[in-house]
């Protein structure tokens, strides 16, 4: 599904990804762990096409489609979703309006019919209930005045409503207490499907107790330096990243 080959990227003059290769097959959840500054957030921005993140070498494909030649919104329409570490506030635009506008923009880009307001509302109500969110919150401007945990829930709600094929979760556990973490993880797990994959980016192993990965990769100094099964997350938690940082 997602295929990254020898990806090099820089921000300004600084090279941050230095030949990163990674394959995530359909239906799998892969975790990327690594020390601060290894390039974890850069990877998520490079894949989603954030301006200022320049790819100098390598390839990134989603089901054979070259992502790097597409605008950020075109990548979203291809089914790529990034759950932000720090979701942004959008003053004056109610969450429901925003999500429906985004969903219909994606559908238009794919040549599909737009979703009607009643159909959308029905789905939004069901998703909000699953995430134990007060539906009235969706009438408020997106993320404005929301707590960290509410923002993360809103990210998962958007994920569920936009139903992407490939999801990147960037430090989704940061700012969550244990109850919120469980609810958010349940929301994410409910989206696991044979035709859908995820990349879970995290510094700590804690999140992976809730969202069980099929594979774990260690990102250090801009490259994947080690890969293994889910047990690798526990080993990293115990032993830290030192030996990989040195190896890099």
């Amino acid at each position, binding site marked *: 599904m997602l295929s990254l080959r020898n990806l090099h990227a820089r921000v300004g003059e600084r090279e941050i990804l230095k030949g990163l290769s990674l394959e995530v097959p359909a239906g799998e959840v892969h975790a990327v762990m690594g020390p601060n500054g290894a390039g974890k957030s850069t990877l998520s921005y490079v894949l989603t096409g*954030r301006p200022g993140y320049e790819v100098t070498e390598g390839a990134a494909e989603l089901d054979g489609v070259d992502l790097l030649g597409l605008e*950020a919104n075109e990548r979203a329409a291809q089914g790529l979703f990034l759950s*932000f570490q720090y979701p942004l506030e*959008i003053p004056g635009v109610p969450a429901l309006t925003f999500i429906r506008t*985004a*969903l219909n923009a994606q559908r238009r880009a794919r040549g599909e019919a737009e979703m009607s307001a009643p159909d959308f509302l029905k789905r939004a109500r069901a998703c909000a209930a699953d995430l134990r969110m007060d539906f009235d919150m969706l009438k408020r401007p997106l993320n404005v005045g929301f707590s960290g945990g509410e923002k993360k829930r809103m990210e998962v709600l958007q994920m569920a409503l936009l139903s992407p094929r490939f999801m990147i979760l960037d430090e989704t556990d940061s700012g969550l207490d244990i109850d919120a973490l469980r609810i958010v993880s349940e929301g994410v797990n409910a989206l696991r499907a044979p035709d859908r994959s995820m990349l879970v980016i995290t510094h700590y192993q804690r999140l992976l107790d809730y969202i069980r990965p099929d594979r774990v990769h260690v990102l250090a100094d801009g490259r994947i330096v080690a890969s293994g099964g889910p047990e690798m997350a526990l080993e990293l938690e115990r032993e830290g990243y030192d030996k990989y940082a040195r190896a890099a």
Partner: protein
Amino acid sequence: MNLDEAIRLRDPTRLPSRRDEDWRWTDLRGLLRTLPEPSQPLPTDAIGPGPFDGLAGEVLIVANGSGPEEIRIGEGETRTLVLRHISRGDGAHTSRLRIDVGPSARLTLLESHEGGGAGLSLLGVDLQLGADSACERLVVADMDPDAVAVVELDARLAAGAGLSQTLLTTGARRQRFETRVRHPGQGAQVRLDGVYVLRERRHADLTSSVRHEGPGGRTDQLARGMVDDQARAVFQGRIIVQEGADGTDARMAHNALILSDRAEVDARPELEIYADDVACAHGATVGALDDEVLFYMRQRGLPEGEARSLLVASFLGEVIDRVGSPEAAERIRSWLQARIGAGD
């Protein structure tokens, strides 16, 4: 400096210039070396549809300066009037309409400024609001890019009266809205709002002064706008609280979005307070759209143009949320939406 005399006497030396403190950002003398000929009469039978069609039974037209000069709204009456100022050609003209709103009467004034050609116009309304009366004035200005125009409102309120104004403009070659209010306090309330959407080399100036002359008055002002390309916006808001106007509550905010490095916003909020126990506040911000927010929106699938329009529309739409008359609010909301989307 007197624009009315300048036009009537065709004397450019009487035009307001940047040497006049209140006109320093909207210099007319530097712009016009000579004054245009007086405008030709404009037949009103061939005038097309206007922005407020269908919202009022009564439509008044001021065509190249000619039109009604006085209107009275009787005591206790409720009326909605459409007032269309239509200017064509490259001549100069002035007009002055006096509106008397009787005690306890209600007037909704839906005013438009259309055309303008390449001429010069000074269009004024004198508004007298009787005790406990109310007037909501909504103005949309869609002028030609070469027009030079000054639109004035002089309002005088009696005790207990309410004036609410919302101006929306796309600017012109040089354009100014000047609103002067004499506020008696004593339960009277004033709301003076404005929205500008300026592109290319257009200019709009929202200037206002509210003079609180008695105790216990309220004034609330919110102006928002966006400037793109090489456009220029001017906001000058002055609130004067005279001696004895104790307990006045006055708030003023101006927030601008600059979408291009070559666009400009000049703002001067002023509060002059000579009374006691007064609550006054003013806030002004000038900024750009947030790149991080734009990326977030695009990551969810919105094309950049649509993301920008949505942000601008929600920012400016908060001014429309304050409009009292729901039908007119919907009309100007779609008017505004069409002009925000036009740049993408």
